[in-house]
């Protein structure tokens, strides 16, 4: 399935970037700088969503002792960390011209930073335990505890009076221009597919690494060659 997801992600990236940079109109208040949103918003959404998926897989692994779900959780973590970092980085690039500062200590920014730290903590804990099964279970517990943070990020713009703007895209409709919407949804889908493709690729490596003693691995065509 990896080629399917990666090719469609690549195509959607090209289309999405074209729409966002050439088709979507210039914003009346933010002029051209708003275009960074086309990367910022999908990265932020996915960074939160991947954390939830990761915590879900981790919980499955912890409760039902299924090996594959723990492997999925550890495969998702680096992608999630990358996207959280990307969302902070693009946010900083956008914040400089708009707010006049690279960084403000605002509820949403801080909680997104905590999310990045949680991803890093998950990866670090997993890496420092040698026994993979104990590593899976210990980091699963951490992931579940950390998932408290995701709703805080999501609702932070409503709970606190923040500098970060509220959600423009809502289920009930939006105030955005149609081309902007198309650009953003395409990018969202592209990032989503990219995340799936990369995680599947990574989980394949993890499986092969852990099962390297199993017979079915040694029977693989690639291994025998």
């Amino acid at each position, binding site marked *: 399935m990896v080629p399917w997801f990666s090719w469609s992600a690549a195509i959607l990236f090209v289309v999405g970037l074209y729409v966002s940079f050439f088709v979507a109109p210039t914003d009346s208040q933010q002029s051209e700088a708003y275009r960074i949103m086309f990367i910022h918003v999908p990265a932020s959404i996915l960074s939160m969503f991947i954390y939830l998926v990761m915590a879900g897989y981790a919980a499955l692994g912890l409760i039902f002792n299924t090996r594959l779900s723990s492997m999925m959780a550890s495969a998702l973590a680096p992608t999630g960390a990358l996207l959280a970092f990307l969302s902070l980085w693009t946010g900083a690039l956008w914040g400089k011209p708009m707010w006049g500062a690279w960084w403000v200590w605002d509820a949403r920014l801080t909680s997104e930073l905590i999310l990045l730290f949680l991803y890093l*903590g998950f990866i*670090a*804990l997993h890496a*420092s335990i040698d026994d993979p099964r104990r590593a899976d279970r*210990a980091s699963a*517990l951490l992931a579940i*505890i950390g998932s408290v943070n995701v709703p805080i990020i999501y609702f932070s713009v409503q709970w606190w009076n923040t500098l970060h703007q509220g959600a423009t895209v809502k289920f009930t409709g939006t105030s955005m221009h149609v081309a902007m919407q198309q650009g953003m949804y395409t990018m969202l889908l592209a990032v989503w597919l990219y995340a799936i493709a990369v995680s599947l690729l990574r989980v394949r490596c993890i499986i092969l690494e852990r099962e390297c003693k199993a017979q079915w691995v040694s029977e693989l065509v690639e291994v025998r060659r």
Partner: protein
Amino acid sequence: MNKLSLIGLLSLVIRRDLVLAMRRRADVLTTLIFFVIVVSLFPLGVGPEMDMLRKMAPGVVWVAALLASMLSLGRMFSADYLDGTLEQMMLVPQSLSALVLAKILAHWMVSGLPLVIMAPVLGLQFDMSAQALWVLIAALLLGTPILSMIGAVGAALTLGLRGGGALVSLLVLPLCIPVLIFGAGAVEAVVSGTSAGSHLALLGALLLVALVFTPWVTALALRISME
């Protein structure tokens, strides 16, 4: 052997841990002195203007308390783990969560309570008003047990790992940020003339949530670490 009641178990474990801590007073004092030194470093680093110091005092005291509590986390379970006591504790008929709760309380009495008692003295260094000092004590009294509880989860997860000390900070510090925000916020609210009630109430709420969940999660983490 007669079966211990829950309260009996709690007091037994607390008493045992306190005696152990008193036999090694140096460990307790190191944490306390670390706290004092970190707080005292700030005026030297940023300069002695009283206005600025007064403004940053609550944050500095809280950050120092957070770091000092990280320092003592490694000791929470490691000695018992090394000499096998922890394994025996898992075998007792009473719930492991209750045992863990007792250990957390003992840890707080040894490492958190001295910080609370010491904090007003350090606050005077920063020229805080009497009212702000009282709120600082109240906030620390509510907040430091939460630090011990969250820290216990981290300590249990990293039990017996190489590089556990740095790792435990990486795991625990992000989770402690809300405590820091509300704890320092309470003092700042009083300084700026509003009521600290809401911040203290939120800290209290966090304390209750932590009290319910962390002993149980720590017990789970200990079981994972010990298998």
